[in-house]
């Protein structure tokens, strides 16, 4: 057994986290920052943070991930990191010449009380930020919230760039939340189909799913431009996808720039996508193109065609709140039964949403915010499931307990596809269905007795 020391019997733990279902804020801030065109993320702390975040994002995307660090030394930890940060700003613009630096703090710089906003002001007055270049910052102490919080905070800082010219731009801001580059591309395809002009931020498509063409672009072609971020203040409204990932930025635009917003679930699965599309067409005042209704119908068709393999199958889920809420709704909507659901990100509201979505399920649900994968594993040992959905770390549970696994979430370190094929929208839901059915039917083909081995499924 890979996780040979995990006992079935569950004992309460209040201090020791084992096999976390979350990581810390800064990596979220870094991922978000990569969604701005020409942006160099900067980690204000020791070298290690930056190295770890870059490594993890690189393993997840198999793409280069550039980010700078303040390279704190013991000295700077005592006397403050301002000098390092100012030096970094100077070197970054001299050597890498980004359009914008998106800096975030770490537990280190937060603990010693460094204030990036103030340092930025100093840099500006000292002329360390060249004409037409930008810097934004986010306070992302690792000991608060999770990687999701860090993402949300950095996205909120992007909203900070928004300005009001007094003239509306007729566009809708879309804040997609922490989804894959392929998902962001898909959201753009959908909005384009419906005919809504949008400003989407962040946008990592074209940044973290780049080509191999013999040239290395430190700043790839993709990403939301600073101009778009500035213009976001003139948009007619904002659709924020995901309370945890995107609501803060949307509300910032609402209060700061008077851009009204609506917070929706992330468009994973049939119903959440329905709500997203319906919201879009109402904003745009257009009718949904048949082409899109067709994609929806194809999804419904596949659900009906394969329903017998999904019906009342038990599922264990681990991931981040916004994603899990939408996924849980999707699974319930296709008559599957998500019975164990864990996120590492704190928030009671999460448990409330999940309980509400699963209330009519034939089985009771175990749900835990601020849980860990050790607990999830113990739940599974006590009530086995037919399917496990989560990040790569789930493979250790999947192999020990012999459970089919669909990799979904962050990080995925051992499979490819998430960069290129979306799971949002109707087509994305089709892909999720294909993956779920794939592992369930592979298992059936593996385990059926020879006399019941099926040609047609």
């Amino acid at each position, binding site marked *: 057994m890979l996780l040979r020391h995990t006992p079935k019997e569950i004992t309460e733990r209040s201090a020791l*986290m084992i096999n976390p279902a979350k990581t810390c804020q800064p990596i979220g801030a870094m991922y978000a920052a990569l969604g701005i065109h020409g942006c160099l993320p900067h980690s204000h702390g*020791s070298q290690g943070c930056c190295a770890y975040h870059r490594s993890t994002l690189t393993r997840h995307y198999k793409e280069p991930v550039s980010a700078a660090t303040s390279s704190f030394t013991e000295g700077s930890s005592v006397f403050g990191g301002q000098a390092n940060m100012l*030096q970094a700003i100077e070197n970054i613009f001299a050597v890498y010449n980004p359009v914008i630096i998106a800096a975030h703090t770490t537990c280190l710089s937060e603990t010693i009380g460094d204030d990036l906003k103030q340092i930025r002001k100093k840099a500006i007055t000292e002329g360390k930020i060249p004409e037409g270049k930008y810097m934004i910052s986010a306070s992302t102490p690792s*000991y608060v919230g999770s990687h999701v919080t860090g993402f949300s905070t950095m996205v909120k800082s992007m909203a900070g760039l928004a300005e009001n010219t007094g003239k509306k731009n007729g566009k809708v801001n879309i804040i997609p939340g922490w989804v894959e580059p392929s998902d962001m591309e898909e959201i753009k395809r959908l909005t384009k189909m419906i005919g809504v002009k949008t400003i989407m931020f962040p946008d990592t498509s074209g940044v973290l799913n780049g080509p191999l063409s013999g040239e290395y672009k430190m700043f790839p072609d993709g990403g939301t431009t600073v101009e778009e971020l500035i213009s976001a203040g003139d948009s007619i409204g904002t659709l924020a996808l995901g309370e945890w990932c995107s609501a803060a930025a949307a509300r910032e635009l609402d209060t700061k720039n008077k851009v009204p917003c609506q917070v929706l679930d992330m468009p994973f699965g049939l119903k959440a996508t329905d709500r997203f599309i319906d919201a879009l067409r109402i904003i745009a005042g257009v009718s949904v193109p048949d082409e899109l209704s067709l994609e929806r119908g194809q999804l419904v068709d596949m659900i009906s065609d394969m329903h017998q393999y999904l019906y009342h199958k038990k599922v264990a889920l681990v991931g981040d709140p916004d994603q899990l809420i939408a996924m849980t709704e999707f699974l319930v909507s296709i008559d599957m039964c998500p019975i164990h659901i864990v996120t590492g990100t704190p928030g009671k509201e999460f448990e409330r949403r999940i309980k509400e979505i699963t209330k009519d399920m034939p089985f009771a649900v175990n749900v835990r915010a601020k849980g860990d994968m050790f607990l999830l594993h113990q739940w599974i040992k006590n009530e086995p499931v037919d399917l496990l959905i989560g990040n790569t770390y789930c493979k250790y549970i999947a192999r020990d307990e012999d459970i089919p696994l669909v990799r979904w979430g962050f990080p995925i370190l051992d499979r490819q596809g998430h960069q290129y094929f979306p799971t949002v929208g109707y087509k994305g839901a089709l892909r999720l269905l294909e993956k779920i059915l794939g592992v369930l039917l592979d298992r059936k083909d593996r385990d059926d007795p020879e006399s019941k081995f099926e040609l047609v499924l």
Partner: protein
Amino acid sequence: MATTTKKKIVQWDPAHVKAELLAKYPSKVARKRSKQIMINEALGNETPEIMANVRTTPGIITMRGCTYAGCKGVIMGPTRDIVNIVHGPVGCSFFAWLTRRNQTNAGTDGENYMNYCFSTDMQDSDIIFGGEKKLEKAIQEAYDLFHPRSIAVFATCPVGLIGDDIHTVTRRMKEKFGDCNVYAFSCEGYKGVSQSAGHHIANNQVFRHIVGENDEEKPGKYKINLLGEYNIGGDGFEIDRIFKKCGITNIATFSGNSTYDQFASAHKADLSAVMCHRSINYVADMLETKYGIPWIKVNFIGADATAKSLRKIAHYFGDQEFIDRVEEVIAEEMPKVLAVRTDVRTRTEGKTAMIFVGGSRAHHYQELFNEMGMRVISAGYEFGHRDDYEGRQVIPDLKVDADSRNIEELEVEADETRFNPRKSAEEIKALEDAGYKFKQYDGLAPDMENGTLIIDDLNQYEAEKLVELMKPDIFCAGIKEKYSIQKLGVPMKQLHSYDSGGPYAGFEGAINFYQEIDRLVNSKVWSYMKAPWQENPQLSATYGWE
């Protein structure tokens, strides 16, 4: 064969390359970097001086990690039966979770915590009111759940800053449990200038808290410790296979697939063989000072180097029977190695490589490339010190700066009861007179061609420039560098975690490495960079209808 390649003339002017690398820097940065970029003129032992083990300039995208990574990730991570609790916010523990490919097997005792990640998941309240209580509770919960032989605690940045006294907490818990050794590492990320400080902190504590804890006699005729081998991709498994075949007993590996008890028994060995000089040479010294165990530098990267190292170990013990056995083993293993080498060389001969990793790997792996007829045209360390470049003779005049000052140096002296010189002064002298070298390491520079570039703490910008200017056939570094290099159409091999391959140590490892490099430099994919319409954009006038 290696010599033939040595003869080749270098295609570029190193001075020009160096100038290009520095051109874009602000003058302050340029000044500093120019001291870390050395055009090799190594002749025998005279090597020009290089600046190493100094701070990375803020804002310059470095390959380096932090002290915590060196302590928890590199040194203590590979030990399988110790519950490693990271005291701090969740990230540090999460990111060090299973990402280094240091392999372990649970062995007969069935203890293996390698696949687990333990954290106190510090919250803001802990930062404000202190985290000692939570740490204590976490240790208790770990003990109650697993009853491990030992629990280690690692400090992350905030711990030092808020002043949690982790050593007192661990001492208290150790006494409370009685049957579980508990200790802590003050390896806050901001200490030192690279992982190297973390290695030091880790090894000091291992030496202080574990080594010597078990005085049981260990069976075995030729007992050694293997220092600085981390079993990445199973290297240690292959080396142990060879040891076993030769009749060598490996008392303790520091620290690949190691156990608490191996460390505790290390003082029972009769020789310390040092692989990674950087991360552990001082432990070898301490083992000699305190217990009388001499040490030698070895290298099991490269088949020839492996043979050489085995002979060196055999000669130390001196028994003819043992020496013969080692020769038998080498004679047995080399033919398949040479068969593959000969085949692969037809496709790799004369190709060029760059290596920027580690510690010692940037040096060791040149052996393998040479065996393939490939030339290393530029190399450097991520966290090396001057002695790793220039040899141990420079150690006395290494200056201690603000960053190294606070990295503890253990004061050890001979153990009253257990000090036992394995060789008398006479024996040592006799061996040395016969050309045998104890605790000697000449560094990387002497082994590299003249005119090659040796660069310390290479950064992303310089890496890209180097590849542009010198066009190597393969580049070796870590995961962060992998894809920016490959985007340029140059295959990139990770030599920290080996990507997905290994083992590359020993004889089997050499074969694996030959084949892996063959695959990388000869993969068809590098010919697909351009689409037909990019290769000839003009539209052919006569369009070929049937």
